């Protein structure tokens, strides 16, 4: 019982320092997020404060050296690429998680889990390299130039598939055995058990994983930069080249100064807010799941 006592009453001096120490460390971690936001705001301020306050969304195009900071096409492209990747990866990931938990023999499940975990560990630039040298020429043979929204979606889907698969698998594994036994006792088919019992019970965790994967897709830079074509325009179709916000920053930051630089920080700010929104939704989703 001594462990549950407030630490400042503890006999050991180290314990007296433990709580404040942990608090400071935790506050530091939280503070970093705040600092990042403040930093982004400060760096983007020259642009946000100028005439282009709204212009940075509404300008006709992105030609920072000519004073045009239209970012909306890149926002749309970012969302389209992430959404497309989710549409591909989410069903596949969830199906493979179901396979892992309900159908696969233990040996196969173990091997499969290992392969998916390895897939998650491949650096994004490797995916990009593969996309640039294999996928893009393949699409180009069919419909030039090949570097396109489609290529970005395919690469991103490959990259986030393991995230979706692994989080869904652990959400399904966490479904209380009593529920499954109850379903079996009621004489439900395996299909019925999976669709009516396991999936609804694991819903929160699965949605959480999908949203986190979406955040990763939004934030991915290198692989998308290598395959998307990076032309700033509204995607008119799957085969149009597009530029996403992250690629914009990576492409131009090294050579930007003045308003151009501020514009890139503004796109970083936009991106951070979008990812934070997704993370918040993910947290809400996982809470909802726990209370169900």
């Amino acid at each position, binding site marked *: 019982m001594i462990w549950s006592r407030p630490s400042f009453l503890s006999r050991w001096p180290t314990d007296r320092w433990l709580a404040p120490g942990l608090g400071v460390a935790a506050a530091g971690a939280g503070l970093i997020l705040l600092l990042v936001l403040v930093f982004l705001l400060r760096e983007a301020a020259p642009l946000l404060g100028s005439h282009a306050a709204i212009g940075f969304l509404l300008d006709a195009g992105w*030609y920072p*050296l000519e004073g045009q900071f239209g970012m909306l096409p890149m926002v749309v492209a970012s969302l389209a690429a992430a959404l497309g990747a989710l549409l591909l990866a989410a069903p596949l990931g969830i199906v493979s998680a179901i396979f892992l938990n309900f159908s696969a023999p233990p040996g196969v499940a173990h091997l499969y889990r290992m392969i998916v975990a390895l897939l998650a560990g491949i650096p994004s630039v490797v995916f990009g390299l593969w996309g*640039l040298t294999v996928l893009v*020429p393949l699409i180009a043979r069919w419909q030039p130039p090949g570097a396109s929204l489609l290529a970005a979606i395919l690469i991103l889907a490959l990259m986030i598939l393991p995230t979706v698969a692994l989080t869904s698998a652990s959400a399904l594994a966490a479904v209380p055995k009593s529920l499954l036994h109850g379903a079996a006792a009621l004489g439900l088919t395996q299909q019925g058990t999976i669709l009516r019992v396991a999936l609804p019970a694991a819903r929160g965790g699965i949605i959480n994983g999908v949203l986190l994967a979406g955040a990763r897709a939004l934030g991915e830079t290198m692989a998308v930069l290598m395959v998307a074509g990076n032309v700033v325009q509204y995607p008119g179709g799957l085969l149009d080249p597009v530029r996403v916000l992250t690629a914009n920053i990576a492409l131009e930051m090294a*050579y930007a*100064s003045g308003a151009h630089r501020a514009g890139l920080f503004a796109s970083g700010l936009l991106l951070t807010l979008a990812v934070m929104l997704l993370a918040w939704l993910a947290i809400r989703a996982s809470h909802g799941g726990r209370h169900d």
Partner: protein
Amino acid sequence: MHGIRQIGRIATATVFLLLAMAAHAATDRLVITGSSTIAPLAAEMAKRFEKQNPGIRIDVQSGGSSRGVADARSGLADIGMASRSLKDGEKDLTPHTIAMDGVGIILHKSNSIGALSDEQIKAIYRGQIKNWKEVGGKDLPVTVVNKAEGRSTLELFLHYTGLKNSEIRAQMVIGDNEQGIKSVAANPGAIGYVSIGTAEYDENHGTLIKLIPLHGVAATVANVKDGKFPLSRPLNLVTRGVPAGLAKRFVDFAKSGAVNDLVQAQFFVPLAH
């Protein structure tokens, strides 16, 4: 407690040492400002120079060739950087060419086009020519590869063609030279432009690209070095009059063969042997 006191003593000594070094460095300080194209190269050179000459501090700031010329003239900077030849009105300054920058137009190796005129290149980049058959090639759509905003290669290309970046209708925008070369090599209908040094190396090592001549001058590092290739420019350090002291030592260092590897690492063409 003993340990803490000792740490305190070491910290105090360190602070004094740093202060002493800062005071010393302030006397041996060189300020270089100007072209953002040269600034990364100058910064690398400065780093090596500082390492070889302890106590010297070199401050490199970018801000455009015009600032480099103005600062060198007014004495705000010891050395200016200008990524162009000096104009007639700037003859009061002395240019020291440290490297050449050359940009070559590249096509896919399988493209049957052997050369393009300036007008054709402009029309292709404006999106007025959309198929290679319009300039006498195969029936194949053109994929225009452009550079991301802010790159010196883009700036040189725009300056040469007289185009504005917003006029260019690109199908692909790339960052560094290698990415451009890989993109062109992967697409039979592509046209792009990259630093000649990189392109020539890759072309000779089996990458599926070819550099095309401009105005009948082959796009080679040798022709850039001679200043014969039209799409090229000198990278100059400029000083007011003949440099002396530390400025002279740095200019000599930047022109020497000791920095050739740094010049090549930035995809420029070194002049020294």
